[in-house]
């Protein structure tokens, strides 16, 4: 048995020495196993305690080996260390040092600030050393995160102001918008308003309203965040007189641009007009869109027929400065009205495209100093405003100048189309609720004269045929208040949850419950007939 013990210990020693190689461990295990196996054959005088001890040590040894395999270091040594040495510090020494784990830290609480500096007996604190101070909740505080984001946003705004506009600093944009109360005024004016709200420079918006100041316009315009000057004007629109008065009165300094309310401006347009010195021109895309869809379809066919004119047709007509190869202004691209002769209209509402008749004001921008009275630094090629007759109005923007060749072409000499001109309006007699608010609910039936689509979509051929009788003919527009529609939908939803209301539903599901639907439908028809 002694030999057995010795072999056992040898095996253990070998195992401990060759700990890192599993083969040796296996061989040790194997050996010990063989030893074990040999022992019942060999010995006969083994005391049960001795064998028990041997087995115990063997088991302990195997356990240590396995744990060491897992952990990667000498578990037995560690146990020995813990059993023998007294724990010397509050910090548990974790051998070996693993760089990915954070080293032992000292959690700081305000009361224990001084004690946090006390370390183990093996090392002393150097003057000035704090230990690793960690606050109790090392996570971001939402209030501070918000503050930080506000700081970031303010810094970025400053950056943009200083470096953004080519570093030249930003001039105020003075937008002049003629408008009048009509159906689509809200549509157009909101569009212009949103564009102006996005402009990164200061904006003064002069809204000139034909027929005097109205509440409609005022209510729309008040929602913008920009500075608005709302002016009423009673005569025909000669464009600049009122504005000139305003600009001069307040000595507004900046770039004047004409934002007709149905135009579409790109943001680059506002960046580009910052570059104007006195009088500039940009290219305007003309969207000559007819109000009549049939006409448009016809004209498209006609376009396909006229092959030789395809090139002209396919390009968008543009009004703007024309330049030669050296980027000098030599002339103007204007809208060619000839192809549309006979089909153009002056007023909106006629069934034809509304086209610009002459040079549109929106393609020109001026330095507001031109409009000032004192001719401090105005170039000589700008006419004095006082000389122009107020009653006649200004026919063309170029007539403001003595020398039209001094106009500066903007947008890489007219090659960039920075805004689009479009005139789309509702019919002159179209009615719209004031402020586009329907209150109280309407029950009006209005006869529509000429809509190309059927007024009420045909009902799908289901059991709900009874409802077809509700519509009173193709020509009428039935304005069913939404609440009632929803009521009907809800009723049908309640009847059977399988079907979706007012949709083409499968016949099978229908037939599953015929009785319910008919009763429901009949009840709703009754309901409706009562109302009628």
């Amino acid at each position, binding site marked *: 048995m002694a030999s057995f013990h010795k072999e056992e210990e040898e095996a253990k020693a070998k195992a401990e020495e060759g700990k890192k190689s599993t083969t040796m461990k296996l061989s040790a295990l194997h050996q010990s196993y063989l030893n074990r196996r040999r022992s019942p054959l060999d010995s006969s005088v083994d005391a049960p305690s001795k064998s028990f001890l041997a087995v115990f040590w063997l088991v302990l040894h195997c356990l240590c080996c396995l744990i060491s395999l897992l952990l990667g270091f000498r578990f037995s040594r560690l146990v020995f260390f813990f059993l023998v040495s007294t724990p010397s510090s509050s910090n548990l020494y974790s051998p070996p040092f693993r760089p990915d784990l954070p*080293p032992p*830290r000292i959690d700081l609480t305000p009361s224990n600030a001084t004690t946090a500096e006390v370390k183990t007996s093996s090392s002393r604190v*150097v003057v000035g050393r704090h230990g690793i*101070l960690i606050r109790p909740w090392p996570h971001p505080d939402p209030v501070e995160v918000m503050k930080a984001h506000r*700081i970031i946003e303010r*810094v970025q705004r400053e*950056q*943009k102001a200083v470096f953004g506009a080519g570093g030249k600093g930003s001039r105020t944009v003075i937008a002049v918008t003629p408008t009048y109360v009509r159906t689509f005024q809200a549509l157009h004016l909101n569009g212009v308003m949103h564009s102006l709200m996005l402009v990164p420079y200061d904006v003064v918006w002069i809204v000139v309203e034909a027929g005097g100041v109205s509440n409609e316009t005022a209510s729309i315009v008040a929602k913008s965040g920009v500075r608005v000057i709302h002016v009423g004007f009673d005569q025909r629109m000669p464009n600049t007189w009122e504005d000139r008065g305003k600009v001069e009165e307040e000595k507004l300094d900046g770039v004047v641009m004409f934002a007709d309310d149905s135009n579409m401006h790109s943001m680059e347009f506002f960046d580009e007009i910052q570059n104007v010195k006195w009088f500039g021109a940009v290219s305007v895309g003309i969207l000559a869109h007819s109000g009549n869809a049939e006409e448009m379809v016809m004209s498209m066919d006609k376009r396909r027929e006229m092959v030789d004119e395809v090139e002209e047709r396919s390009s968008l007509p543009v009004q703007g400065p024309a330049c030669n190869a050296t980027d000098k202004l030599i002339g103007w691209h204007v809208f060619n009205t000839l192809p549309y002769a006979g089909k153009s209209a002056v007023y909106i509402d006629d069934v034809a495209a509304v086209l610009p008749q002459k040079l549109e004001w929106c393609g020109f921008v001026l330095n507001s100093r031109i409009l000032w009275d004192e001719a401090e630094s105005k170039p000589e090629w700008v006419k004095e405003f006082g000389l122009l007759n107020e009653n006649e109005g200004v026919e063309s923007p170029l007539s403001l100048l003595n020398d039209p060749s001094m106009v500066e072409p903007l947008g890489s000499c007219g090659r960039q189309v920075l805004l689009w001109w479009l005139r789309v309006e509702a019919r002159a007699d179209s009615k719209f609720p004031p402020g586009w608010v329907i209150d109280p609910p309407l029950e009006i039936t209005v006869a529509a004269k000429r809509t190309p689509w059927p007024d009420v979509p045909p009902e799908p051929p289901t059991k709900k045929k009874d409802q077809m009788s509700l519509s009173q003919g193709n020509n009428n527009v039935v304005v069913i208040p939404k609440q009632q529609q929803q009521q009907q939908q809800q009723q049908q939803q309640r009847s059977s949850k399988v079907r979706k209301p007012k949709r083409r539903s499968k016949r099978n599901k229908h037939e599953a419950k015929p009785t319910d639907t008919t009763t429901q439908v009949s009840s709703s028809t009754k309901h409706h007939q009562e109302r009628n």
Partner: protein
Amino acid sequence: MMNRSSLSTILLFLFFSASSAEHNARTERISGSAGDVLEDNPVGRLKVYVYELPSKYNKKLLQKDPRCLTHMFAAEIFMHRFLLSSPVRTRNPDEADWFYTPIYPTCDLTPTGLPLPFKSPRMMRSAIQLISSNWPYWNRTEGADHFFVVPHDFGACFHYQVEFNFDIKQEEKAIERGILPLLQRATLVQTFGQRNHVCLDQGSITIPPFAPPQKMQAHLIPPDIPRSIFVYFRGLFYDVNNDPEGGYYARGARAAVWENFKNNPLFDISTDHPTTYYEDMQRSIFCLCPLGWAPWSPRLVEAVVFGCIPVIIADDIVLPFADAIPWEEIGVFVAEKDVPKLDTILTSIPTEVILRKQRLLANPSMKQAMLFPQPAQPGDSFHQILNGLARKLPHDRSIYLREGEKVLNWTAGPVGDLKPW
């Protein structure tokens, strides 16, 4: 006559103030405690004589290891080259105000590129012995009108901070080593600066560490790219090789930054080495410049060049050219014990103050003063060093010693330093 001249001066003044007012919209003038001196021209205000030392003190070291030209201690080499071709150089030592010794004590690098300062004291001793025996100017003043460029971690103390056994006696001894005794009367131009520390002499000039100017110029991005990172830092938090437990490296401040703010999305901090390091700094509002083993770091230079407000976490640090640059107005100083509250501190700075700091940083003379460009340009660090030296002129009469008088102790210091180099 008087009226006309005064009128013209008034007009000139108005003109300049008007033009500078416009300039102020984007940048602000920098005036430190010494006044508005960043743009001073030192030429004509001082004369420097450059000693001729054998090349074993300078050129041979550089030939052995050309990495000395690119690491952060390269200022000593470039200062030598600058002085050789500068108009302040004089070949007549009798009219010189300052004497420069071209020696590169930090050019002894380990394979990984870190300098070994152990032989530097001996090198310095032997150089001083050489100049004191070949020229009379050292003995005349015992070095009081000489200046040396010592850009190592702890300046002329020529040692590391901590000996790596944690026995306190050893540490005290290491600090007690102090500045090399022979250099006690000389002016030291060094990167290290910490108040109440033995390694900072009273009359020293603190300079920024060397950062490669061309490399930084090559990574500039347009200034209108919005700054979207709030706080930025790249570097070690724990020095696992030398300080595995943590708590010694950076006096625990860097580890505190990591532990407190690793979960904070406002803090872009990690140990990465991204290739877009310079570009990221230009997209950040604050850049952390915590101490490492020494309180100074090249991050300060990088932050200034890229317009990122430096957040300096190093108690009692003395920053470069502290008398010419008002660092309090440019950077944010955070005490090391306040690191857990760093986010509160930074978010509670008023936006107006932040914008003003950015304007000061945008001043080109500020950026220029931190750089060592090749060839030298007006207003750069070389000129700031000369300005600093010029500000110390004229020398006090008392520095000139009488015949035979000796102040320095040539045998002071550890025995190992006395061995010839």
